[in-house]
Each structure stands twice: as structure tokens, then as C-alpha cells.
């Protein structure tokens, strides 16, 4: 799911987030909200009904839709049990429907935005960066054969036209990831109604959405001069749409948890401007054999246990109690460390979490719409 790009589409939600002045990795500091302040151009296709997915083709880009993303997160550890989290996301943003003028190879109606974050849990340090490029001249883009999505030197590469094994490569002069993701034994999960995920009341305010909730991962993470061999599990979300948050929607809290009993839990809570959960909040509980149990707002009770405040006073609820009474689940979900804020063009909190309580595990939490 990850409504991050949808968030970009909605200007009123965003205080004009200034770029982090310390973050010199970021090649540019351009905010997109100006252009994307309103609902997408009606010339873009909309997700109105479930579609026949066709793989591996649908792993590639869908430029007829306004936004799209390839969203990877994961909890990894070294042989010495040093724990690390990572996030790599490539967003595609359609600026305008249709093909651009063909007079120059630099022309494009497509834009790619990338977010990379490495959470050094032992040190409690969060390294993040952002980059942009137009999808032109070979600077960024997506191909289906071979399956490859790239933004400058950051790339998501399949194997030929197949998705797995997947290779993720991204970095800055200071940090880098180079990871291999295997298919594992868990099948793909189609979210919502056969992959159509309704995000708001209006028809078309929906996305096509599927997930791989547990992908065995190994590879290398570089932190400065240290090169660490890591293993663990990744979570991969794929989503495309031409939807935007509705007037009254403020943001969401999104949980992606990999439990030690081999079950995976995804739940997102859509919040209105009063901070109340909306009925579009949804989730799934995925069993070890791939069986999917859909979750609605009524199935889940969420309570905030504690907040973390950024240096300029933005409060993020980073400690939670998540209950699914029907399944006897009562989880404490807590940030692996507090400051995992993504302070770029779009400002949100996205970080590794630790699960305890009735079940234990690890996961990722995304908190959006808190910075005003």
C-alpha cells in the first residue's frame, strides 16, 4: 500500500517540508506538491474494478496511471547479530498523461523519486537520502525485459523477465545496500478485493495493490567504511493508482509485521483530520501456508502507547498496542529506536520496529500526515 506518493499528491496535507540542510546526499530539493496539489489529471487511467493481473509484466511500470511504487523494507542482521533495517522505494510520478514531444531525448512526462534509508539499530542511527530524476535519456525508468526499475545508480533488477531473484542496489557516498531477495515459499498476496484496494469513498480512489510479505534476503550493507554481510527478510509492496487522499483524510499508520510464528500481519489505519480511524482502514493476516485472512477496522484495536518528538516538535506515535481479539493477538509494536524520520521533500516517519507481547517479531512502521 504505502500512500506516500498519494501523500505527495495532496498539497493541503503537507507543510512545505524544507529539505534537511544536513542531508547533502540529496541531489535536489524540489517539492512536488505544487503540481500535485489536486486530483490527478482525468487523462490518467483509474482503478475502478479488479483487474486481471499479468505477471511478470505487471511488475513493470504502468505509465497510464498517475503514481506507482516499488516499496521494499526489511529487517536484517549480521553474523554477530548486529541488527539493521532498510527501506528502498522507487516512486514513479506521471506529470501529465500521454507521450511527451519526441523532439528531445530529455523530454518526459514521467518522474522518478527514490527514498533510501538504513537504520543502524545498534548505534541508533538512521541514514536516509532522496533522489529525483526525469524518466528520460536513460537516467531513470523501468523496463520489463529485462525487468529493471532504476533511478540513477539505484536499481531494482529481476532475473531476465522474472522477478526473482531480485537485486536491490542503492547508495550514497556514505552508505549503500546491495541485496539479493529470493522468492521464498510464501505466495504473493493480492490486497483488498482481488488486488483492488479502496482508499476513499469516491470511485477510482483506489489502487492496484499486491505484496510479497516475506522474502529471504542476503547481501551487503555499507556504513561508511564498514561493509556488513547481512541476512534477514524483506517485505515488498507494489501499488499503482491515480487516486488522491480525500478532503477529510489526514494520513495513515501502516504496520508490516513479520512474526516469529511465521505469520505476517499488515494493517493500515486511515485517519481523518480529527485523528479518527476511517472505515477504509484495512489489513491482512497471512498464515505460513499463504492463507490470507482479511482484516477490517472492527477486527483490530489500536492504541498509542508513546510518542517521539522531532527536534522541531513534530510528534510521531512510535509505540503501539495492536490487538486482534478474535485471533488472541495482543502485540506491543515499538520503534527499534526513535529517530527514524524521513525528512525530505515529503516528511514522514518510517522505521524498523520490534514486536513483543502475545507474539514476538520484527517489522516496519510508517507514520504519515503528522508533520504539518
Amino acid at each position: 500500500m504505502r500512500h506516500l506518493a498519494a501523500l505527495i499528491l495532496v498539497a493541503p496535507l503537507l507543510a512545505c517540508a524544507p529539505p534537511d540542510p544536513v542531508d547533502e546526499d540529496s541531489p535536489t530539493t524540489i517539492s512536488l506538491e505544487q503540481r500535485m496539489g489536486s486530483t490527478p489529471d482525468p487523462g490518467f487511467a483509474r482503478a475502478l474494478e479488479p483487474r486481471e493481473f499479468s505477471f511478470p509484466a505487471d511488475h513493470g511500470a504502468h505509465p497510464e496511471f498517475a503514481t506507482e511504487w516499488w516499496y521494499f523494507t526489511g529487517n536484517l542482521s549480521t553474523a554477530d547479530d548486529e541488527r539493521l533495517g532498510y527501506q528502498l522505494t522507487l516512486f514513479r510520478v506521471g506529470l501529465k498523461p500521454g507521450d511527451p514531444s519526441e523532439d528531445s531525448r530529455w523530454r518526459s512526462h514521467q518522474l522518478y523519486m527514490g527514498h533510501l534509508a538504513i537504520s543502524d539499530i545498534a548505534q541508533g542511527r538512521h541514514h536516509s537520502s532522496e533522489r529525483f530524476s526525469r524518466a528520460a535519456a536513460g537516467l531513470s525508468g523501468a523496463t520489463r525485459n529485462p525487468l529493471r526499475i532504476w533511478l540513477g545508480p539505484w536499481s531494482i533488477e529481476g532475473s531476465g523477465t522474472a522477478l526473482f531473484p531480485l537485486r536491490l542496489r542503492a547508495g550514497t557516498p556514505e552508505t549503500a545496500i546491495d541485496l539479493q531477495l529470493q522468492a521464498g515459499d510464501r505466495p504473493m498476496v493480492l490486497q483488498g478485493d482481488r488486488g483492488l484496494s479502496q482508499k476513499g469513498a469516491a470511485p477510482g480512489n483506489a489502487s492496484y495493490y499486491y505484496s510479497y510479505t516475506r522474502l529471504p534476503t542476503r547481501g551487503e550493507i555499507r556504513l561508511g567504511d564498514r561493509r556488513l554481510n547481512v541476512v534477514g527478510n524483506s517485505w515488498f509492496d507494489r501499488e499503482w493508482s491515480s487516486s488522491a487522499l480525500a478532503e477529510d483524510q489526514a494520513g495513515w499508520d501502516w504496520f508490516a509485521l513479520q512474526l516469529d510464528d511465521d505469520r505476517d500481519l499488515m494493517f493500515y489505519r486511515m485517519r481523518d483530520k480529527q485523528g479518527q480511524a476511517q472505515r477504509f482502514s484495512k489489513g491482512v493476516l497471512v498464515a505460513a501456508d499463504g492463507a490470507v485472512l482479511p482484516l477490517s477496522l472492527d477486527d483490530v484495536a489500536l492504541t498509542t502507547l508513546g510518542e517521539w518528538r522531532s527536534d522541531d516538535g513534530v510528534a510521531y506515535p512510535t509505540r503501539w498496542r495492536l490487538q486482534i481479539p478474535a485471533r488472541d493477538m495482543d502485540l506491543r509494536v515499538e520503534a527499534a529506536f526513535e529517530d527514524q524520520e524521513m525528512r525530505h521533500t515529503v516528511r514522514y516517519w518510517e522505521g524498523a520496529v520490534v514486536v513483543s507481547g502475545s507474539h514476538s517479531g520484527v517489522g516496519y512502521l510508517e507514520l504519515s500526515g503528522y508533520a504539518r
Partner: protein
Amino acid sequence: MIDLGLPRLLLRAGLTYQLRHRWQALLALIGIAMGVAVVLAVDLANHAAKASFALSSAQLRGAATHRVIGNTGEVPQALYVQLATAPGHPPMAPVIVTRVRVEDRPGRLRLIGLDLFAEGTFRSGLPNVIRGQRSLGEWLSRADAVALSSAAATALKVDLEDRLSLRHRGKSHDLQVFAIDSDTGIGGRDLLVVDIATAQVIAGMPDSLSYIDLVLDDDALAWLRGRLPASVRLVDVDTQTEGVVGLSAAFELNLTAMSLLALLVGVFLIFNAMSFSIVQRRNLFGRLRAMGVRSQEISRLILAEAVVLGIIGTVIGSVLGVWLGEGLTRIVAATVSELYYEVSAEAMQVGWLSLAKAVTLGLAGTIAASWLPARQAARTPPLTTLSRAALERSTRRQLPRLAGGGVLLVMLGLAVAFVLPGGVVTGFAGLFILLLGAALITPLGLPLLHWLLIRLPLGGVWRMATRDLDRHLSRLGTAAAALMVALSASVGVAVMVESMRTSVSDWLQDLLTADLYVAADAFEDGATLPDAVVREAPLLAQVSAYSVYRDRRLQIGDRRVRLVATRLAEPSRRGFDFVARTDPDPWTAFDAGEVLISEPLAHRLRLRPGDPLVLPTPRGDAQFTIAAVFRDFASEHGRVFLNLAHYRRQWSDMQVNTIALFSSTDDADALQKAASARFSADYELSFTAAREIYRESMAVFDRTFRITEVLRLLSVAVAFVGILSALMAVQLERRKEFAVLRALGMTRSQVSLLIMIESAVLGLLAALLAVPAGLAMAWVLTDAIQFRAFGWTMPFLINATPLGWTLLLGVAAALLAGLYPAWQASRHDPAPQLRED
């Protein structure tokens, strides 16, 4: 009050004198103020043009530390993509820069194409402008968006959403004003910012960039080193000369020369004013000395006066200079905008350096100018000091020594300018020494002239007037020298410009031998001809011979030179004037692949025929042999001529910019009609006859030197005012003498005539001496300074017109200067004047 170490009495004596001789004090002030004003004004105007350009250049450059440039002037786009998709790359931004013309407007603008996503680190102002006003998505997805500064919008008279039609290499491009920056995000009046895609289309560079900007530290430098192919180079932005796109060096030198000449004239005016006020008071000083005032005290008094006068004069001059500078800036800005790039007259700022220069000149010049007379006044024994006759005697005794020194200085000046190694500065040093020498010789002209005129069979007032020249040597000598310097500066510059004009004109006429030149629309830089035209134009029935030219820019070291690849017909070859060659016929060597280089290039790179010349080609460096050096005024950076066939092999470029056609009959018009009939329907071409190109080129030349003319007239005006004040002071001081003459029975008109004759003769003398001095100056400017600056050698040609004007001007100024004293002397009743003492 400042303690000058002087008795109060003495200070009062000085003050009383200045108050009683208000006229003289005022005239001395005018001299100082005018000198300061001109120097300041020229300096301000000069800097304004450069500052306006530097501002936009600095903003263009942004935070970049390095730049990847191509040997052939372009960087392959693939290289940028390759680097930008390589892990660990440093911040970098692709840039396309080209020159465009706005339809129906003179002057050219810089069009810069940027990828805003790469710009954050470099020119963050640019993306801010776009997103501050409009959406970035719209900017990217519209093929005709252009952003500009509010200064540029005002200059081009466009507003948001207005269309802007650009011409580039014969093609029109219709853009729409997307954002106007009222802040400083887009600097300069000469900048148009477009998306890099749009720039690529306009510049006609589908696969390349102008350069890549980078921010590099040591690690990034190491990262980059192994990744650059041989066809590109990494340069430090600081060392990449602004000259590439900057002011024409010739124009800049011109302004500098004029500013220095103004300075020189200013110093002379101050010297004249000060020395006159001192010479005139020798009586007073004599009396003071006789009363027991020590010599140091007198010199200190004089210097104290100089300081006071200097301060007041400098303040007035600075105010005047700023005012004058604004006017001059407008003229300079208009010329620069027309010829080079858009600059705004508003760019004038009173810089500290300019002000410091003017203040230094005003104060130091005044003090220095008083130094010698002060010392003399202080040294002479009291009794001698009292006697006016003794002063004139000692002045006369010194004249030969002064003149002798002057001759030595003239010779030294010539030697420095022509022989001493060094650049333009050495040339100007020689010029100044020369002029100083000429000024020292001038006073000797007075007794010589007296000796000559006294022999004329004229009597009465005429005789008195000529004898006065001799009697007032100490006063008139300096005035004559000052007038001479001012006039000679004007002669020198005028003769140099005329000499250059003739050389350029001759060279153009030799060069433009063909009957018709065919180029893509309007000879715009870099426009290339359609293949069909290149193939078929020589086949027209009226064509007896043809030449083909491919003109492009090349980077040799840090110089950008023009490479002309050409197939030259026999008559085209005859237009070349070789100044150095190994073989009497360099054309055989040229046909075999050797190159011809222009004089400026040979001068700058110290190249001689037979030397190797390495040129960067798309396949890496290639070595050529220099067959000969030819005279060329087309480019101050230099040109290289290479055989077209060899060029095509090395550069794999089949493009052609111009074809020159020779008519088989005498009827050039028929040829033009035939060519036009054959091609005009299909292509946008320009058919230009040689005489039209000649006319255009000379018009550009004249426009370039229009500012010189304005400045020259200005320095003449200053000289005029200076002379006026100096002569007026001399004549006003003699009021008593005139009163005596009146009392002795001379009529009013006779006294007036006496004064007028004296003035006219003095003006004539100065003008006569200004002619040889001015010619010597012109010679130094033409053959020493131009050569040092550009490597141009040109025959030194004397034109009579400026000489005649100078004579007229000198006499006219002197006559005008005599008018007021003559009127005063004739008007007043002599009695009060006589009673005065």
C-alpha cells in the same frame, strides 16, 4: 583644527591669499574636480559593463567547482548518463548553453538549458523560481517554457504568458514566458532559462551537452578520473577563463585605454592648476622668507593648501564623476548590448576601488603636483624669490634641461613600449613615459615660437602679444603642456582608430574576393547549409569557381579558437596576406594537410611556421604542422585554417557553413538571382554579396569604436575646461598689468585683442606640439599595444582629418579661454585695479 606644524600667521597668509584670489582657487578646484570626475566616470562605466556580465556568469556558475568540457566543444550526453547512473557519483548537472537572438531585436542573449532535478546543489535559485511561481510538472511537460529575470523581461518587454520568438542558427523557436524572477534566482539581463530538452532542440544538440558541472572534493576527483574518455577534459571552473564568453578583449582594452588617458589628462590638469597657484605667489613666499619664515614652513604651507584644495576638489569631482558615470554607463551599456550581450545600465555601482582610485588621484595627484613647485619655492633664497624676473630667468635656464630630459623620456617610452618584454601593461607604461617626455619638451616651444613670431613683419599689439609669450614663460609653460597632453591624447586615439579601420577595411576587401556568399539564414553563428545546397550551388551555370567553409570552435589549452576547415578556390587564396611562412608557397603544404594560423594565435602561443600544432579531434589529439601565419582581424582568439578534406577525415563532420561563389561573368547580380531562384523556394538561405558583408563588418567596427569616440570627446571637453581655467587664471592675474596698459593709453579693443592673440598663439603652439606627440602615441597604440594585446600587426597610417581637428580645437579652446579675461579687461575702469596694491 589639524595641527600642520605651522604658525597661525602663516596659515592665515595662505587662507587670505586663496580668499583674495577666489577665481584662481576656483579654477584650481575645477581642474582637480574635472580630472577626478573623468577618471571616476570612465572607471564606473567600464566596470558596470563587466559587472553586469560577471553577475550573470557567477549565478550561472553556481556552486560548481569543476566542469567537464569536450575537446570539440560538446560533451556526449551518453557520458553524463553513464556517470549519473554509476554508484557513488558526485553531484553533477548537465548544461547546454547557446546564444540566441530575440526576433526583431539586436544583440544576443544566453540561453541556458538545465535539468532542474540536477540543479539543487548548483543553482538552487533556479528551481526555486520555477516552483515558487508555477508547477514543476508543468515546466517539465511543456516544450516551450522559458524563465527569465525581471530585468530581462523588462528589457525584452514581455510579461508572463507572452510569446517570445527566438532565432538560432537560422531557425525560429516560439517560447512562452513561464516564470519571471524578480529576485536573484536568475541573474542578469542576458539570460533565458529553459529545460534542458528545450535547449537541446534549440541548440540542435540531440546527443550532446555543452558541459557537465560538478562539485568535487578529493575523493570525488579520484572517482571521476578513470571514467572520462579522451574526448573530454576536466577543468577547474576558476581557471576556465571568462574570456570565452566575456567581453571582446578589444573592446575592453579600448575602455581601459580611454580610462588611463583620462587619468593622465586629469593629472596634468591638477598639476597645472597647482603649479600655477604657486608660481604666482612667489612674491608672497619671497616676502615671507625675507621676514624669516623657514623654507620648510613654506613648503609645508603649500602642501597644506594642496591637501585642502585636493580634498575639496576630490569631493566635488567624485560627485560629478558619479553623475557623469551614469551617463557614460548608459552609452557603454547600449554599445555592449548591441554588440555582445545584454547588460543593464542599472548595473552601475559606485565601487570602492573606483572611488579609491579617484580619491587617490585627486589627493596624491594634487600633492604630487605641488611637490616640485613647493620645493623650489622653499629652496630659493629670499631675495631671488622676490624678483619675478629672477623666476623667469631661472625658468628659462631650466628649459633646455627640461627639454633634454623630455627627449630622453620620449626615447625611453618608445623603448619600453616596443622593446621591453611584457604585456599590455608594459605597453601603456611606455606610452605614459612617452607622453610625460613630450610634456616636458613643450615649454621650450614657447621661446622658440616667440623667436619665430617676433620676426613676422607685424607691429603693435601683435608684437606685444608675442613678447608676452616669452615674458610669462613660467606661467604659460605648464598651461601649454597641459593643453598639449590633452590634445595629443585625442590625436593619438583618433589616429589609432583610423589606422585600424583602414587596416581592417583593406583586409576585408582582400578577403572578400568572391561575388556571392551563400549561408544558412543570416550568417548566424554555426548555422549549416543543407546538403543539397552544398552539392548543387557550385554547379550553377554562372559559377566559375567556389570555396567551401566549415567554421567551428575549438579548445586549445584554455583558449577557444576558431577552426576553419575549407576548400579554397584560387581567387580566395589570393586574399591571404602571409606575415610568416617557411615556403614561398604555403598552399602546397596546406593542400597536403598542414595548417595556416592567424597572427593572434601565433602571437599568443608563440608559434612559428614549421612548428607543430596539436588540435583536439573527436578521436583524441592530432598533430598538425604550421605552414604559415596570416594576417587576420576576424578573431582576437585566433583562427586555424585546415584543408576541408583532412578535416572531414579527422572530425567525421560533413557539415558546411558557407559557400563562396565566383561569377563566370562580371554580373554578380545575375549570379545572385540565379542562386536565389534555384534554392529560395526550398531553403531558408541568405545570399550576400561581398560588398554587403563588407558594409556590415565595417558597421560593427564603427559601433565598437563609437564609445571610444564619446570618451575621446569627453577627454577633449575636460582638457578644454582645464585649458580654459588655466589660461583664464593667467590672464586674470594680469588684470593690473592690463590696467597699466589702459592707463598708458591703449584702447579697450587693443587690450582685448592683445589677450585674444596671446591665447590663440598659445593654443596653436599646444596643438602644433600635440600633433607629433599624438602621432607618436598613435604609433605606440597601434603597433606596440595592439600587438601586445592581440598579436595584430597593422600598418600605421596617418589620417589628416583628426590632425586638422586638433589644431582647430586647440586654437578654439584657447580663444574661448581668452574671451572672459578680454571682456573683463576691456570693461573695467583701470583706476581701481591700479590702486589695489
